[in-house]
């Protein structure tokens, strides 16, 4: 069975609600994609933007699950009215996904934990002094 990436895709929206409190429109998205693997979130955002006549940056899609057997997936979609409300109401991880926020730099987890465990043995200002690992040798 060939995976045809240009096969037609049908998008249906259900349970459409206009959420005035969060300045967005939210709905359940049903994607029918026979003879095709899952459709990417970026492509879905583009198609939804063209259907609802908004910019594709305002459309957020998430939570897609494919039904058994393939060909159909169900997920959720949100369309924000403007960027300000999107930045205000969207959770951080989804903003990072769509590129509107920057992820905090990934610190070395092991280093942090080791530093914490070393500091547990001391008290007061000595914690700052003994932040470095004890020099081996010397």
């Amino acid at each position, binding site marked *: 069975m060939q995976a045809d990436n240009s096969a037609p895709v049908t998008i249906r929206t*259900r*349970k459409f609600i206009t959420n005035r409190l969060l300045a967005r429109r939210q709905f*359940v998205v049903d994607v029918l994609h026979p003879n095709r693997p899952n459709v990417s979130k970026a492509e879905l955002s583009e198609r939804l933007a063209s259907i609802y006549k908004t910019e594709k940056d305002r459309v957020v899609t998430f*939570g897609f699950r494919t*039904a*058994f*057997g393939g060909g159909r997936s*169900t997920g*959720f979609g949100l369309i924000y009215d403007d960027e300000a409300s999107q930045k205000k109401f969207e959770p951080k991880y989804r903003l990072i996904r769509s590129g509107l926020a920057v992820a905090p730099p990934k610190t070395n987890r092991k280093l942090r934990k080791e530093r914490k465990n070393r500091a547990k043995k001391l008290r007061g200002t000595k914690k700052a002094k003994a932040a470095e690992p004890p020099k081996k040798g010397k």
Partner: protein
Amino acid sequence: MPSEENVQAFCDLLDQMKVSMSAARDIVKTLRERQSTTHELDAREGISLLSLKHHMMLSYLQSLSLLTARRAIGHSLAERSAPEAPFSAKDRPARGDGAGDRVDAMVEARVVLEKVKVLEGRMKYQIDKLVRTAEEGDSATKNIANDPLAFRPNPQALMDQGSEDEDEEGGSIAGDDRDGIYRPPKLAPMPYVEPSKSKDKDRSRRAPVPSALANLAHLDPSKPYMESTSGLGSTPALSSGRARELKRINEFEEENFTRLVMKKKDARRRALDEADIALGGTGMVSARRGRVPGVGLDDEFGDIIKSVGRTRKGVLGDGYEELRQRGKKESVLARSKARSRDDAFDDLGDDGPRQRKRSRFEKEVKAAKKRTNSKASRRA
């Protein structure tokens, strides 16, 4: 200049008014005579509850019509004069003239009517009985048992029952104490049977509900077509508890625009069960301990497997009782029958004992044989 029809109509109206006024005058005259001569309309000692009901209803209706008339003219409903005496005072004067007073009078009448209804409900039995005797007279021919009004609850009977028990207990206790020796009660010896905790034992020992009929318990009365069109296979979402749970999870996720956070094990179990339901199974694949694929007979045919070896009467009691029943011989009548009751049930699929239906071919074969035999015998 008013037209002829209008003048005629006006004259007819005036005549009607004259007639009704003379009728009203006659009625008032008869009422005054009755009041002066008889004691029927004497209300010094109060009136009965039933006539109170009628009078209050009349005054309510009068207030209502007056109120609508005044409202039609345009009076506001707020003008009222303060009542001079409380409601319970016997000689309180009538209410004032304002429209608000009419509203108050209506409220009073409504409250009284509701209370009267409650009281009448309590006296209903007596009233019905009196009315019936008044209508039919004293008919002794009527059977007491057929008459619904002949029996009424007798609380005295309950009190007698209670006092009898107390006397018996008091007597027995006094008797034993005289000897001073404890004598145990004389009962036949019985084997000791541990009382089974009937929480899960009861549920598993009862005959399991056949799976084809189990779905009837979960039918949605507002959607009758869901079961009728599917024939053998019921909606997969209704067949097992796990299927319904998964459906509920899905609905929750769609309603609340989230995906539930599950552990890896639970997520894998959910995917497995959803795949099973999509393929037409019961959705209880992941609940089996031994994850051998294809061995799912217990789910589908559980009711048949569990009912083998069980009598039709079901559970008799404790195991002791069931053993005794199994060892007993049946009655002579049952033993004398050539076919037992169980055999009768096995034949249900075949529409009773099968008769050898003689087809046309067989009939012709038989006729031909007869002919050859008779020819042979004649020749010989």
